[in-house]
Each structure stands twice: as C-alpha cells, then as structure tokens.
C-alpha cells in the first residue's frame, strides 16, 4: 500500500467546521451528567480515608433506615471473578472487599431519591478498619522491609529476594553495552524522579445505569470505549455482555483516563438492587482520589557519547508504580526510552512496583514521557559537557527507516529526521535566545496501534452518506472520518454525517486510545466506502447494460471506463442512490477488521523559557512543535493534538503532582492546588506538521494524539537547566524546587 506518488486530495487536508461544534458551544451537547431518566435515583460512593487498611466490618443499617435510600452495595454484592487476574483487579478497584489499598478506594455505595440523601446516607455507613502500614514512594516500596501493599502479586520474571512490592520485571535492548561504553569519550549516569499526574479532563466520570428485572441493562456514560466498558461491566456484574447495551455520551476529555471503568459497575449494581435507573457522577475530589493518574517513577539513565556526539551506548532502569495494582506501563517506557536513536548498544530495564496509590490508567503515551524525559535530559547534559549542539547531536544519532529500534523492531518509513531537520531550519531555532531566557530541545516517540474496528456506511436515497462507527469522538474524529468518506466517495463533506453507534448496533471496537482512531476507523471507513462504490458501479453498469468491470468511479460518479465501454454520461452517487429501490435495495458498505500497520510517530519540541530568579517560577515564552502526521486529514485537529499534548506535557514538567501526607492521604485533590496550565500561562504553541506518508494507510495517515505529550518534560528541563546553570533531575520543576536549585539549598 506504499504511496509511490503524493496523492492529490480534494477533501482530506481541508479544515471544515466540526459537526459537533454548534452543539458544544451552545450547551446542547449531551455529556455523561446530562442524561436523565424517569424515576432516576442518585448515587454516592463511600471511600476509604486510609491509605492501607483491612476492612473488619461494614454496618449499613443506619444508612438503610434513612428515608429515601433505595439501595446500598458493598464488595459483597459483586460476584468474585475467577481466572482473569486483570479483570479481578478492575473489580477490586471499583469496590474493595477485604482491604483498601489507597486513600479514596471505594468501600460502599448508596442510591437514594436525591443526591443530598445519598450523600447523607453514605456518611451514615460505619466501616471498621484495621489500619496497616502504607507506602506511597516507589523507591521506598522497593526497599527491603517496606510495608507490603499486597501479598502474592509477584510474577515469574522477578528475581528472588526482592521486596514483595516488586511485581514485574522486563528487559529490552541489543548489543554489547560494555563495548559501547568503552568507545565513549564521556559517560554520565543520572537519577530522575517524576510525580504522578492526572489526565485532568474537564468532565468528571458520570453515568446513568438502568438494570431491569429481566437482567438486561442500559448504560449511558462518558467513556473512551463503550465496547470495552460493556465487557468490563458484564464481567464485574456476572452477566452476559449482550444483556447490556452501552451508549457513549459526548466526552469532556479523556486522554486515556476514560479507558477504564470506575463508576459504571457500581451504578449498575445499585440499579439492579433498587430496580430503578441510577445516576452516578463523581466530584472533582473523587476524580483525583478515586480514578487513575499516571505512574510515579524513579529512573536511572546512563549514556556514553564520543566527543563528536555519537551515542555509543545507552542504559536505563525504570522503576514505575501504578498504585496498588499490576500495570505493564514500565514495558511501554522501557521500549520507548531510546526509540528515537539508532544505537549499537542499548538496554532498558522495567520494574513495576506496588504502592498505596490509586490504580494507574493510561495518560497519552503511557510510560513514554517519563522514560524519554530521562534519556533526553541525559543527552542534553552530555551535549553541554562536550560543548555540542543538541539538535545536531540528535540528527547525528536519529533513528530512521531500517534502524533496529531499542525494542527490537526494524523501523519502516518515519519522520524523526524530517522533524529534526525542520526544527533546525525553523526561525525559532535560528532566532537569538531572548535576553534573560534559555532554550531547550527534545525528541519524543510513540508506537501507535490500530486494533479491532467496525464501521458501517449507508448511502441514503437522497444521496447523503451516514457513517456509523464505534469510537467516542475525543479530538474531532467525526470530522476526520467524514472527510475520508467524502474523499473516497467523491461527495462533499457536508453530505456525510458520522455518528457514534452504541454497542447494540455495531460490532466491537477497541477503545479510543493508542492514537488509533483516525488511522484505524479511517481505514475501515475507506474500505466500507469502497464496498459501497463497487455496488454503485455494478448498478450503474446494469442500468447501462454493460459489464460492471467496464465502469469506474470518478469524482463522485460512475463513468464508463474508456471509450470501449460505451458512451454514457456520468451517473452521480445521488442519481444511483435515488434509484436504489429499483436496482436492488439499500446501498451500504461495511468493514470489520483488525487494523494494523499504524506506523510509529515522532516529534521534536523547542522551548524558550524565562525563570524568575526570586521565585523560581518558569514562564514559557515560545514553544514550537514539529511532528510527522503522515497525512493530516483535518489539519486543525492535528494542530490541536500537537498543542494540547504539548500543554499537558508542560503541566507535567512545571507544576502537576500528587502530593501526599505522611498518612498517605492526597493533599491536593482539586484544581486550585493541583495546578494544570491554563490559557493565560501559555504562549501560542506553534506547530509544524510534517507529512511523511505511513505505508500502512492508503492516505498515509499516522496517529498523532500521544506523541506531543512526550517531549515537553525534557524540553523544559533542558531549557530551565541551561537557564539557571544547574541541572534538574526531578519533576515537576515547581517554583520551590527550581528556587532551591538556584539558591543551592
């Protein structure tokens, strides 16, 4: 499917208005909390005040006696899951049974006739705890004698003798490390730490659940994947998946954080018990305490470099904690750490460690920002020590097509070198650093993937097109899917409407994650459109009385393929559709498949910052993002992803962190104390889209959603460290931490 010649597009690459725009700016869009039902009850979850405790008893009698209370559930109301350890963890995270493993862990839930009654009833539930020792720091959790978060979680790949909190180990890489380091003129080894950060979506988790007496259910929820939510809820409740229909609402941000269930199984269990619909909406406080942030990490990185900037060897040890549950995020970090570089000798080691923190869930390129932060910071320090240009060094070492990556895969065509060269040629890099400011640069990477995808495309008798797809639209995907349908069919964008179908009306679709939707759903839409086109050409041929093979599709119409096919005027899609009842019935195309060949993604960021020497506060003065999009289907949304990802990465770099008390209690569960960047903090993020076609997609599309969160951590570290003349090794670089570095104490 390689593109020999750049394809000329009519609709793809344009910037039409988004189909959901009017509803969203006028407040008509239906988000999770906007859905209601007659007779609906309101729910409240009771959460653990302790970081680690054994549940001795739960007394719900006083709450049950409160007028208006209709149902109470605890862990005892959920059938134990056997065999699937991952899903059992999801269930135990939704509702604790014998132990609570973090402050905020759900222990009971109430449904009542008003939110006020539900809240009051939750406070009347008496839980007797035996408080156990806790640990929230990843290094402390690995130390001998650390409090054990959960016994028996260690997997077969962990060497004997380690802390019981170490559950998983992985190793990647190739080549002779010792020989590589021996060739280096300079070797440095540095330790880094990053804090847990939250996705910070504007819309808290919210759902409406309705179970009926015959065991069937409906669920309306804000989610990144209603098909997975159906699977998970069915497993957790012990019902068949087909008994539950899930409809995705509009979504007020997800960034990975809404790829897992928290509220939904609880709301369904309450509804089942009460026999009424139940609405469950989390508060912001609950979102911070009870849903997944990123991993918290401790990383050691060692790199050797020659005097002329060739990296001879790289080694990194990643210690990741995703809370009290197993997570494979350390794998993703360990594979991604050195992916930007063509190295003869590279090794990475991943460790997963349990701590008494909430269960981690994906956040844009999960695991990669932290690992690449360490690598890109170490490279930058080596560049300073060897007096080398940091962009030239990255160009010299950049991975390219044919490079054996640090995780073993040989890369196909990709755009890192193009992004680096674009950065080097850009006015930002070539402009003088402003007085009192400093400049940083870093690379980033994400794998991208495709996955299970199902699309139906229907041609209306009036010549309009309806696309049904199954991935909640987070970043404008309905517009992008409509553009690809329009392109393939040759009809105006305005004639196509894309909707997100519920789980009862379309085959399974993987979550909206992994930067997969524009790539995978787009590919499925193109294939569905091709099927519909084939049918329309067959019908035109029948009308004309010629062979179907003698018809081709040009600019939205069937036309005879050459002079020998006969002389007929083009028959447009609308004309064929208008006659569909007479020519064989409805016209549709369908595609269900596993999309593969997503194509890796790279980006390069440049930042200019000014650090206030008196307060330690960092101001971002200028920021430019360079990224390979393969083909930008709707450039506004590609730029939006690049800007949004960059801002979230800047938040990770400068301010965002979960702060714990010595009792393991989160001290900043709200946006006043957990500081995410806002518009007034940021300059306009400049974007440069590179288009190096992905050979795995007919239009050359690559996913773009995750890579842009990766480089900012090191980009800002490098800029700030160069600015204050001292290297920083811990995130966030909040004003107190930067001030401490400036003052030297």
């Amino acid at each position, binding site marked *: 499917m390689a593109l020999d010649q750049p394809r000329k597009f009519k609709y793809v690459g344009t910037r039409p208005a988004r189909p959901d725009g009017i509803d969203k700016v006028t407040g008509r869009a239906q988000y999770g909390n906007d859905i209601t039902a007659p007779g609906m009850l309101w729910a409240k979850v009771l959460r653990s005040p302790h970081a680690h405790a054994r549940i001795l008893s739960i007394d719900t009698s006083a709450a049950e006696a409160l007028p208006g209370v209709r149902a109470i559930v605890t862990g005892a109301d959920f059938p134990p899951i056997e065999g699937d350890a991952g899903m059992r963890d999801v269930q135990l995270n939704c509702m604790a049974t014998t132990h609570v493993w973090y402050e905020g862990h759900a222990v009971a839930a109430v449904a009542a006739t008003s939110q006020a009654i539900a809240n009051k009833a939750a406070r009347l539930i008496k839980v007797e705890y035996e408080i156990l020792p806790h640990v929230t720091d990843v290094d402390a959790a690995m130390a001998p004698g650390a409090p054990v978060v959960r016994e028996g979680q260690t997997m077969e790949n962990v060497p004997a003798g380690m802390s019981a909190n170490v559950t998983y180990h992985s190793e990647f890489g190739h080549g002779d490390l010792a020989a590589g380091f021996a060739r280096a003129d300079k070797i440095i080894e540095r330790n880094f730490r990053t804090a847990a950060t939250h996705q910070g979506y504007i819309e808290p988790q919210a759902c409406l659940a309705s179970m009926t007496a015959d065991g069937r259910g409906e669920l309306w929820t804000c989610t990144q994947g209603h098909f997975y939510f159906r699977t998970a809820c069915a497993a957790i409740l012990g019902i068949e998946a087909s008994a539950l229909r899930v409809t995705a609402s509009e979504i007020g941000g997800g960034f990975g954080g809404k790829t897992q269930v928290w509220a939904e199984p609880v709301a369904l269990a309450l509804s089942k018990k009460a026999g009424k619909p139940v609405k469950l909406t989390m508060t912001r406080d609950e979102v911070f305490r009870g849903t997944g942030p990123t991993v918290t990490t401790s990383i050691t990185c060692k790199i050797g470099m020659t005097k002329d900037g060739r990296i001879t060897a790289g080694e990194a040890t990643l210690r990741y904690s995703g809370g009290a549950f197993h997570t494979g995020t350390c794998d993703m970090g360990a594979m991604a750490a050195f992916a930007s570089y063509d190295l003869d000798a590279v090794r990475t080691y991943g460790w997963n460690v349990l701590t008494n923190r909430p269960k981690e869930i994906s956040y844009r390129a999960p695991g990669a920002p932290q690992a690449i932060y360490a690598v890109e910071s170490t490279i930058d320090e080596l560049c300073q020590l060897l007096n080398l240009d940091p962009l030239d060094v990255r160009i010299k070492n950049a991975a390219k097509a044919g490079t054996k990556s640090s*995780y073993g895969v040989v890369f196909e065509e990709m755009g890192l070198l193009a992004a680096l060269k674009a950065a080097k040629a850009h006015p930002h890099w070539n402009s003088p650093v402003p007085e009192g400011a400093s400049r940083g640069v870093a690379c980033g990477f994400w794998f991208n*993937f495709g996955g299970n995808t199902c699309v139906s495309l229907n041609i209306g008798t009036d010549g309009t097109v309806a696309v049904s797809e199954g991935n909640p639209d987070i970043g404008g995907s309905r517009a992008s899917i409509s553009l690809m349908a329009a392109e393939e069919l040759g009809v105006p964008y305005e004639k196509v409407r894309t909707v997100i179908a519920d789980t009862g009306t379309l085959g399974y679709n993987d979550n909206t994650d*992994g930067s997969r939707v524009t790539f995978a759903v787009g590919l499925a839409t193109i294939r569905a459109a091709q099927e519909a086109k084939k049918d329309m050409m067959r019908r035109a041929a029948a009308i004309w009385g010629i062979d179907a093979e003698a018809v081709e599709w040009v600019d939205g119409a069937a036309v005879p393929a050459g002079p020998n096919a006969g002389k007929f005027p083009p028959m447009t899609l609308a004309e064929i559709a208008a006659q569909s009842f007479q020519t064989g019935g409805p016209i549709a195309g369908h595609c269900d498949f*596993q999309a*593969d060949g997503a194509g890796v993604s790279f980006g390069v960021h440049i930042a200019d910052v000014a650090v206030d020497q008196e307060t330690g506060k960092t101001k971002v003065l200028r920021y430019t993002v360079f990224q390979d999009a393969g083909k930008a289907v709707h450039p506004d949304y590609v730029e939006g992803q690049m800007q949004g990802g960059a801002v979230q990465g800047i938040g990770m770099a400068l301010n965002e962190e979960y702060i714990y008390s010595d009792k393991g209690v989160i001290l900043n569960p709200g946006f006043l104390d957990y500081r995410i960047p806002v518009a007034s903090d940021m300059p306009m993020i400049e974007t440069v889209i590179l288009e190096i076609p992905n050979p795995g997609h007919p239009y050359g599309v690559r996913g773009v959603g995750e890579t842009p969160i990766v480089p900012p951590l090191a980009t800002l570290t490098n800029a700030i460290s160069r600015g204050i003349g001292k290297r920083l090794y811990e995130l966030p670089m909040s004003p107190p931490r930067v001030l401490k570095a400036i003052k030297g104490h």
Partner: protein
Amino acid sequence: MVKVALWGTLRQHADGQAEVEVQAANFKQLLDELATRYPGLKPQIKRGVSVAIDGKVYREAWFTPISPDSQVVLMPYMVGG
C-alpha cells in the same frame, strides 16, 4: 522455520536465547509453538503479547501470516491513552 526475537526477561525461559526458531505460519501457531517448546513463556503469553512482523505491530490477529524470512519480534501487549 521462523526466527523470533525475544525481549530480555523472556530469554531465561528459552534457554537464554535472544532469538529462537519455531515452525509457524501465523501468529497463533507462533504462540502455540512457543508455549509448547518453552513452557516458562506461558504466563507472559497468557497476560498478553504483541508481535511485530516486518515492522508492523499486531496486538492480536492470530491468523496474520508469517513467512520464513519475516523479521519477527515478540513484544508486550501494547496499551495506549
């Protein structure tokens, strides 16, 4: 026979080999053969693996064909945000 590259921590369950040769014409046969010949790999295969075939990453796709000269790399199951 297909050569399959294993990541570091799997090698202890494959007699220390970084690369093993198995008889497999698709992803499923590859997993079945690996689990049969190297039982120590079973827990990881059960938890989930992806496979890269000639640079393309497949998360499931049992029947993805593998030719004898394919470059095959076993990877952990990929997740994203």
